[in-house]
């Protein structure tokens, strides 16, 4: 179902009003180690003296703060418009009920429009009301956090459990980090699992995306999906094979990567040190900086620094797009 995207959409996707490079970390499948890679890369960049923004865009299950061992600070509500109905003004024309594509408006009796279902704040009801009976209230759908620790700033959002509108939080958390972009040398974005609109939303503006996977049939299947998504948007990409020594089908992962012209950026083996860092809430790069696992992340940052952080290459990148 790969459709051609309008060139304007691809341009818009890659366009950022700042020059700080964005590196995305995604993977299609859940539980493959996206967040482990994201927090360790962040720690490795910090170890090299870089100012780093880490955006946790998995707003359904945000875990980067736990893996970094830093509590969430500076909560800010994410709000959307929610209609407020004034029955005194209502003429009972019910245009709002018809306009609501979510079928969330209900009229139990005369002049008593009630919001019964989900509201995504599109404002259709407000726009069509001829009597001025609808005003714009606001409604909190989640929370945004910004936590600063030395050279690392973590931007996280959390969807309010029971609500459906993850996309709004993903955009809000991205916008918060982008507003501060000039303060950083690099922005890392950790996405939700899957290949849906929230993942694309999170990867907006990414210069390079690391697709994390594992050598299982599920890993290679989902890797193929995410790589074709990255292809649709013409995003530079490479693959990180986590748990590379699992008894499985590494060759299928390698085939999928090759078919999508993605290099294997790193292989991470099942590693006690890495697991210890994960459980303890300290990136292995900080916990055991001389370990084999830490070395892999430090090496990855060297590559990313050389490719995306030097001014010369930056211009080249822009010319390519």
């Amino acid at each position: 179902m790969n459709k051609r995207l309008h060139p304007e959409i691809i341009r818009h996707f890659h366009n950022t009003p700042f020059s700080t490079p964005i590196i995305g970390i995604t993977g299609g499948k859940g539980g493959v180690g996206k967040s482990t890679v994201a927090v360790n890369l962040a720690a490795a960049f910090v170890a090299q003296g870089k100012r780093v923004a880490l955006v946790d865009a998995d707003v359904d299950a945000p875990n980067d703060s736990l893996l970094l061992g830093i509590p969430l600070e500076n909560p800010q509500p994410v709000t959307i418009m929610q209609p407020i109905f004034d029955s005194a003004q209502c003429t009972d024309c019910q245009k709002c009920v018809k306009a609501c594509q979510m079928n969330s408006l209900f009229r139990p009796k005369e002049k008593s429009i009630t919001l019964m279902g989900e509201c995504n704040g599109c404002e259709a009801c407000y726009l069509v009301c001829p009597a001025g009976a609808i005003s714009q209230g606001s409604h909190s759908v989640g929370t945004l956090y910004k936590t600063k620790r030395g050279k690392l700033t973590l931007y996280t959002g959390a969807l309010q459990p029971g609500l459906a509108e993850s996309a709004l939080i993903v955009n809000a958390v991205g916008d918060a980090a982008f507003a501060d972009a000039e303060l950083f040398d690099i922005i890392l974005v950790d996405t939700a699992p899957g290949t849906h609109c929230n993942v694309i939303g999170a990867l907006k503006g990414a210069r390079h995306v690391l697709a994390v996977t594992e050598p299982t049939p599920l890993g290679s299947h989902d890797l193929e999906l995410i790589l074709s998504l990255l292809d649709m948007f013409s995003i530079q990409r490479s693959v990180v094979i986590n748990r590379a020594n699992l008894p499985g089908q590494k060759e299928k992962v390698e085939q999928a990567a090759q078919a999508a012209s993605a290099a294997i950026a790193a292989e991470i083996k099942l590693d006690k040190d890495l697991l210890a860092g994960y459980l303890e809430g300290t990136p292995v790069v900080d916990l055991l900086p001389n370990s084999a696992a830490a070395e892999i992340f430090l090496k990855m940052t060297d590559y990313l620094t050389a490719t995306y952080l030097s001014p010369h290459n930056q211009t080249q990148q822009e010319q390519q797009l």
Partner: protein
Amino acid sequence: MKEIVILSGKGGVGKSSLTAALAHLLTENGKYRLTLADTDVDAPNLHIVLGAEFDRSTGVTASNKAIIDYDKCSRCMNCVSACAFDSIIGTEEPVIISYSCEGCGVCSLVCPEEAVSVHPVENGQINFVTSGTVRVVAGALGIGESSSGRLVDIVKRQARQEASLSGCDLLLTDGPPGIGCPVIAALKGADYAILVSEPTPSALSDLQRITEVVQGFKIPAGAVLNRSDMDPQSAQTTRDWLTGNELPLLGEIPYDPYLPQALARGNLGVKMYPDAPSSLAIKKLHKVVEGLLE
């Protein structure tokens, strides 16, 4: 017929593997009849875990999108400024970003030329898969698409129909990760939710978030601790949290290298290595699930 849904909040903790193993054990010797629903429409993997045969597939229209008739469009860009989701862009003419369009129709309301309208579009498919006596109804969202919640609704409706037509005792749903719209859709109408976790701080945090959703919908639930021997301290923290929140621990499954080996061969651990530690633990858990069906 009972409906049980398997959820976790966190991805990769073993929902699909557990769903497949339970399905195998419950239908062994024809004891129960069941239909499976794969509602992880972003990464539908249940068929891979089952090593199942592909049957047939149908396209699904689970989303409405705005479409512009450029012959009528006057390039006034009213639609660009009205869209609350920043889903219309453009400098010379408006372009709809289909993947983030929610189909709310505000653009068509503000268009003075009646050039924008909202239409249903095909954005996914439903695959019907057979594994032994078990039918699997699996949703697959198109790459880069939205409206996974509505696709999950359709998958569940189809699966429910399949299950009741073939006189099933159970509709077992493999849920998506997270707590957002597809999860809520997977959970709707369930009699019971099995929440899979593993002993790590992240998995506990996600378990807490999914529990809030499940309890919000007043659906009875119990938990399964997968890879339970991975970290004794985290395992104990999880057990304590479950006790404190009156969530029964239905079973614990130890980490077992036989499982990925079976998966790599497109087979089930419980089938290929019936005496492996994980298989024995899942068999015990399956008795508990049988208890839920009585």
